[in-house]
């Protein structure tokens, strides 16, 4: 009986299984045809030359480290920057969501700073922190701060009033209300904010690595490759950036689907 169910599930998946591949394959075919037609590797290289770069992720490129080395550098920066941003945003969001006085005090400042793109902070970051890890972390932290903050705020506000009141009548202290009702109740929304924030952080790190004076990271690598007209390296680097971003988002979403199922099922 159980085996049947599993078999059925597998069969049901099969016919649709290849749908996702149709557009990417079409895209690659069009690319290859265009590359042949243009016939200029400095504008659009053939698939094969990009594939060669991707197939040798550990070999150094133009004397500035391999794809893997640079990806690791970028990932380290994004993790540190995101951690700083989220570590500031979550407590502030909880405080703003829980105490309206904090909200009224801080909100005007948030409204003014939020529309400034993280990259507009680059010159100031350079002036304050000079070239190096600190300014990159600053930019990345800023980029992830706002989505995490706003989702945390939203999550805390969406916690049902009777969840809090039930806890209070069961004897919860203010601290217990925060840690045992508000945080777990808001966590699915906070997690969504972290996903969005991490996505933006990943975009920021690539851009931040294009700042003058940087000498490693995927953003640096593709800009450096441009200076040597190595378009196949630029594209290979972009593909790696995209795949890492997709991989991280998928991981975070899987976790969300597994752990926070109650949000959808709660009627």
């Amino acid at each position: 009986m159980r085996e049947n169910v599993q078999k059925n599930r597998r069969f049901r998946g099969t016919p649709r299984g290849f749908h996702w591949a149709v557009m990417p394959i079409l895209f690659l075919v069009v690319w290859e045809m265009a590359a042949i037609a243009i016939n200029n590797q400095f504008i659009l290289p053939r698939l094969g030359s990009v594939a060669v770069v991707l197939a040798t992720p550990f070999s150094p490129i133009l004397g500035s480290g391999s794809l893997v080395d640079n990806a690791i550098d970028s990932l380290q920066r994004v993790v540190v920057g995101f951690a700083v941003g989220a570590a500031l945003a979550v407590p502030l969001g909880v405080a703003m969501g829980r105490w309206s006085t904090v909200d009224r005090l801080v909100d005007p400042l948030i409204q003014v700073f939020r529309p400034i793109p993280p990259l507009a902070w680059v010159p100031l970051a350079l002036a304050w922190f000079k070239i190096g890890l600190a300014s990159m972390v600053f930019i990345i932290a800023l980029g992830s701060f706002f989505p995490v903050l706003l989702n945390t705020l939203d999550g805390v506000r969406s916690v049902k009033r009777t969840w809090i009141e039930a806890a209070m009548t069961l004897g919860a202290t203010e601290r217990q209300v925060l840690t045992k009702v508000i945080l777990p109740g808001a966590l699915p929304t906070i997690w969504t904010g972290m996903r969005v924030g991490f996505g933006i952080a990943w975009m920021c790190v690539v851009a931040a690595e294009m700042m003058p004076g940087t000498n490693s990271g995927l953003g640096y690598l593709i800009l450096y490759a441009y200076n040597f007209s190595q378009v196949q390296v630029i594209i290979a680097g972009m593909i790696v950036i995209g795949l890492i971003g997709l991989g991280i988002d998928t991981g975070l979403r899987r976790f969300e689907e597994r752990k926070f199922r109650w949000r959808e099922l709660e009627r």
Partner: protein
Amino acid sequence: MKKLVVDRVSKTFETDTGEEVEALRGVTLEVEEGEFICILGPSGCGKTTLLRIIAGLDTPSEGAVLVDGEPVRGPTPRLGMIFQDYSLYPWRRVVDNIAFGLELAGVGKATRTERAREYLELVGLDEFADAYPYELSGGMRQRVAVARALATEPAVVLMDEPFGALDAQTRNAMQRELLEIWEKTMKTVLFVTHSVDEAVFLADRIVVLTTRPGRIREIVAVNEARPRDRTCTAGASLRRYVLGLIDEGRPDT
């Protein structure tokens, strides 16, 4: 000593537009230990406000609430509250929902789980200990909420239209079960409802409120033995009498 005393409680709200609304005026009520009281009234009569004040979730503008002679100054585990929307924590299993109050009080994991299972058995849901609330029907969820409120052994149980969201059959079954639980635990119960039928079936005494500002219209004693027959003539005439009280309490339209 009376178990619960509501002493000349009045409540005036200020709306967003700065208007003052008088929700309750001079409500006085004395409840004996083990009594089952229904607070009945038309919608908007302030019955939920009264219950929230008793629970310590709202403060009265005037007057006071005493439990075992001690004034209520805020929410306390001495007063268990059951909400209409069940208010279970969807991220906690049923058994952990019931153990929540004990967890807050610092009771160890083994002890509180054991106690939670006892109350789960009391409400007849022992098989569902490891389920999540969203896997249960409305009636089952409300039984979990009852078990959760009882697990901290409150002096008084307050229920705010707990069966209001349930269909008629489930509602009748829940009323019978609640009476069984009440007889086993001997708790003092204050039960808010807008259903005359429900009040007549459940209560020792029915507190009938008027429309806003809510005042006590009359306290009606129900002297019929339990289990009560929903269709008997004594019940019918009592229902007619109570309905009359509610209608009189309405402003002329």
